[in-house]
């Protein structure tokens, strides 16, 4: 190999290391035995993981996050699949405009929106409620679903459904037997990304979460701003990151996720 190629590979490796380092450190630091992480650690143990699994207050925040993410993902993927189907198969005259509208939240800043939403929610009295949180999360994940599913449907021949209809299948059945199974990897991708965005969101949720429906990231965020993180938070964060990493690597290898975004 030529020197330039070696340098190039080293540079690339350094950037990849930089991308990996924070999550690697996060996972590593959860094994530190001490109450405050320091490097090199005085000792390694699994005790914070054990504590994490037993702590009821963290469990409730995690359960809240999971419930909210599941419900908003269901809404986001359903509405997204409907919209993508209508847009890619409908021959609407206003297609470009509707697409622009539906994808706009990807380019508009969420903080700005959250500052407005906070005030509207306060007036409507739904700040900190389950419904308010799910609505906000469904809306921020919807454009992601729409984009992933539009790209998915663009790769599926619309004549497949027509063939099914000419063979005697009613429209819904034709969709469920032909387009839907072929779109399943895309639907799964949309669901996973919607779930992750919702589950991890702190930018919007910190404005509208209440004491009753506190999510895990918001809880962690207030710790980070205040006294600093406790090791239990670190352990839970490490487990979440490890799960996400495994899911993303599997998803990328099996479904080429990076191409669907």
């Amino acid at each position: 190999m030529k020197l330039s190629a070696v340098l190039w590979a080293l540079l690339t490796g350094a950037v990849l290391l930089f991308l990996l380092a924070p999550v690697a450190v996060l996972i590593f630091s959860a094994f530190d035995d001490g109450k405050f992480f320091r490097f090199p650690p005085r000792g390694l143990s699994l005790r914070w993981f054990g504590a994490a699994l037993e702590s009821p207050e963290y469990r409730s925040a995690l359960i809240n996050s999971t419930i909210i993410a599941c419900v908003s993902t269901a809404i986001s993927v359903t509405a997204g699949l409907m919209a993508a189907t209508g847009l890619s198969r409908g021959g609407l005259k206003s297609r470009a405009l509707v697409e622009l509208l539906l994808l706009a939240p990807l380019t508009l800043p969420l903080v700005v929106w959250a500052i407005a939403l906070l005030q509207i929610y306060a007036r409507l009295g739904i700040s900190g409620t389950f419904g308010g949180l799910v609505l906000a999360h469904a809306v921020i994940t919807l454009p992601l679903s729409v984009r992933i599913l539009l790209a998915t449907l663009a790769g599926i021949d619309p004549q497949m459904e027509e063939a099914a209809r000419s063979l005697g299948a009613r429209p819904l059945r034709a969709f469920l037997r032909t387009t839907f199974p072929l779109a399943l990897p895309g639907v799964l991708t949309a669901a996973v990304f919607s779930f992750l965005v919702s589950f991890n969101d702190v930018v919007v949720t910190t404005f509208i979460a209440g004491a009753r429906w506190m999510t895990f990231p918001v809880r962690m965020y207030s710790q980070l701003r205040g006294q600093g993180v406790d090791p239990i938070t670190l352990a839970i964060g490490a487990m979440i990151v490890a799960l996400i990493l495994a899911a993303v690597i599997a998803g990328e290898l099996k479904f080429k996720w990076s191409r669907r975004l």
Partner: protein
Amino acid sequence: MLAAKSARGLVAPAVILTAGVFLAPFLLLLAMSLWSQPPGSLMLDVTPTGENYRRITTDAYYMGGLARTIWLSLATTAICAVLSLPLAWWIVRRAGRFRGLILAVVLIPMVCGALLPTLGIVNLIGPLGVLNGTLKSLGLIERSWKLLGTQAGILIGLVHAFLPLMVLPLVASMDRLPRDAEGAAMSLGARRRAVWTRIILPLCAPGLLAGSALVFCATLTAFVTPLILGQGKIPTFATMAYQQASLVLDWPFASALAVVMLAILAAIGALGWAVRQALPGAAR
């Protein structure tokens, strides 16, 4: 093909959600930024006033914050561009069967959210963190290198958070590069440097532009990373807006700060569009 009626029915829920819940609040924000909150009162005064904007433009605290934010955004964008170009090229041309795995690594900051990687960075660059611990045990430094609570620390976090926004559009545009273009240029006598400046960079310019716009806008409005890695000592425009909205509870003023951010983003968008039009091959 679907009938237009059923297509409209399918699109309707998403359009209602997006237009009603996402876009409508932006319009309300414009109105709310003109309201005011008299000191010591919880009631809002809804007579339109430009007082909030006057306060932002005349107070050195806010204008300084704005200048610092723009500087951080520009620096983040530049660093991301410099790091992404070789990485994207390597992914497209050299990674081969590792491509998927490497792209998964690139996706990490995106799929982990803003918070978890930031928590990792705190433990990485903190006074007792991995970086300082390593340097100290190697005997390279005696006292901890102060990164947490400085602009450098914030920059590290921002670059990490938004690098994928630059890498992915670049990979997409490099994927579309005709494979033979480089070979053709070399057969015509172009050296490696000329291949980059005359062929690769011009053809990737749209991707680079898209990535830059995304990174700049994301940085400008980020508040979680600056707040945590700056340890509250380095106010940026977005952290100011966050504090006004969620701690000070002066919502009209927070709205005005948000509107200013939106205006800057609109200007960046317009600039990006103009540059895109001026690029060769804009019609494609």
